[in-house]
């Protein structure tokens, strides 16, 4: 019943916003995973015109005085609909945008929040990484969506660069932002909400959709260990359901990454070359969506990193 109401509310909001969009992208709309913590789970697909790049888990946290958006969405439309959804929940000012990392499905919706003049909080590496990648991402998405660069959206430049930690005060609610070395990407950060013991992991955590490695495999495994040590009771993954219990929610991803690491090291040890890297981690096939689209690429990235390790 609650769910149906939410769906109706979502449809209404879409109509009110006058945004032409695939309804499937917002079907189910927001999930309140804890008091004041709202998540819009993304579709477990690659970006398409049909899903408007609403493929990542995005959302927001509401404090006494202000709202922080955590990942503003994958396109101008995705961000716009998130903003409309926020306005239906609270009239408080949207004072912060937090980017969990540099990938387009998480940040291109930022353009929809320009009118809020938010503080834009990102990893210290974000600006440089976006500098190298942003144009490529926008062009790529514009092509997928039908050619209009405005539809693809854009990131807003960071105003606060986090190299280790930062606290964000929403009034009676402090969010702890933690930055990491290269893991999923080289600009990953997480947000921890003390009040509800909720860890917003961004793409440091995937569930159901196969993890995509664009940073450091060993770094990612290390960071995952650090995240598991946090006192969180739930986690919001970057892809997958709106929430998972923590730390048990790390198990699938950790198994995949450890398998990838073990198999690539074994391949290296027997003298295999990178052209056979895609044969690794086949024991994970069938456990993940989009496995065939990403596993081979992950294997190449992993191989390229691990071939520089000292032989054991």
């Amino acid at each position, binding site marked *: 019943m609650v769910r149906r109401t939410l769906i109706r509310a979502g449809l209404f909001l879409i109509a009110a916003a006058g945004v032409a969009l695939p309804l499937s992208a917002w079907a189910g709309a927001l999930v309140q995973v804890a008091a004041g913590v709202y998540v819009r789970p993304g579709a477990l697909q690659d970006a398409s015109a049909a899903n408007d790049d609403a493929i990542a888990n995005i959302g927001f946290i509401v404090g006494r005085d202000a709202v922080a958006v955590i990942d503003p969405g994958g396109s101008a439309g995705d961000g716009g609909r998130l903003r409309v959804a926020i306005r239906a929940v609270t009239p408080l000012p949207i004072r912060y945008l937090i980017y969990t990392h540099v990938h387009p499905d998480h940040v291109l919706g930022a353009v929809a929040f320009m009118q809020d003049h938010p503080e834009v909080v990102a990893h210290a*590496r974000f*600006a*440089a*990484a*976006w*500098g*190298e*990648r*942003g*144009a*490529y991402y*926008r062009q*790529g998405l514009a092509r997928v969506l039908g050619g209009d660069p405005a539809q693809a959206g854009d990131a807003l*430049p960071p105003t606060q660069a986090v190299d280790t930690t930062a606290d964000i005060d929403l009034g009676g609610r402090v969010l702890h932002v933690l930055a990491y*070395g*290269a893991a999923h*990407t*080289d600009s990953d950060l997480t947000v921890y909400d003390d009040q509800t013991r909720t860890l917003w992991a961004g793409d440091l955590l995937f569930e159901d959709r196969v993890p995509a490695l*664009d*940073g*450091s495999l060993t*770094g990612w495994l290390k960071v995952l260990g650090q995240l598991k040590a946090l006192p969180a009771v739930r986690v919001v993954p970057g892809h997958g359901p709106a929430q998972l219990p923590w730390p048990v929610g790390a198990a699938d991803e950790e198994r995949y990454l450890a398998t990838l690491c073990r198999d690539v090291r074994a391949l290296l040890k027997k*003298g295999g*070359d*990178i*052209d056979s890297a*895609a044969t690794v981690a086949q024991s994970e096939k069938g456990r993940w969506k989009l496995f065939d689209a990403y596993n*081979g*690429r992950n*294997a*190449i*990235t992993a191989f*390229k*990193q691990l*071939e*520089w390790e000292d032989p054991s």
Partner: protein
Amino acid sequence: MMKSRLYALALLATLAAPVAWAEDPAADAARWNDLRQALFANQALTPAKGQIALDAPDRAMDAALVPVTLTLDATLPVKTVYLVVDNNPSPLVGTFRFGPAAVPSQLKTRIRVDAYTHMHAIAETTDGRWFVTERYIKAAGGCSAPATKDAQLAMERLGQMRLKTVSDGPAGLPQGAVTVQLLVSHPNYNGMQMNQVTRHYTPARYIRDVTVKSGEALVFQLEADISLSEDPAFTFSYRPQGPLAVTVRDSTDATFSHTFGEGGS
């Protein structure tokens, strides 16, 4: 060679940018014809029948790191091998010139591929014969896509090298010949990633020249361009005549040298 290369670049500047995902046999044939004229104008290129073979995945998993294997007829006195990726912004990927310590049997490297494209490999022998082979590859975005996974590490490790012995190298090598893989850590920034904020491109910094000697004898010298992958790798065979000395020079004229002992370390 240098001059013809400039012609090739000038020529390409006048051609429309290749469309990354379209397959157009007529346009592909015209492009190769232009390239062949620009790069090898005076040579008749004989279609290879085993003299040179080119192997790469039909569809690349990572367009910024496409493994390529060149296999040569070991009985042929190959002097130089040219690798061309027709639809890349700078199509001549590399020119490998073999020296007296080389066993020109197989070469492996990793390249960037920017659009669906034909690739060509050309072998030139010491007695003036030229052979060409081609294959088609589906990959896109390898030049303009972000490739660097860990920018901090890329600069920390800049210029470091590794040498690995390859135990299952090509069959039928002459007695005493060995096969090794050389890894060079270099981001190979090709200058094609634009910073949206500054509207500047990330400055190009890529490997131009790799010279490998065994003792005093040249194994090979590679003249490269922007299409080698990040952290390029080279697998080759040679007859050891002393320690293996590698010198790499990049487009900023930074030079990195390393000598590997007989044991390969």
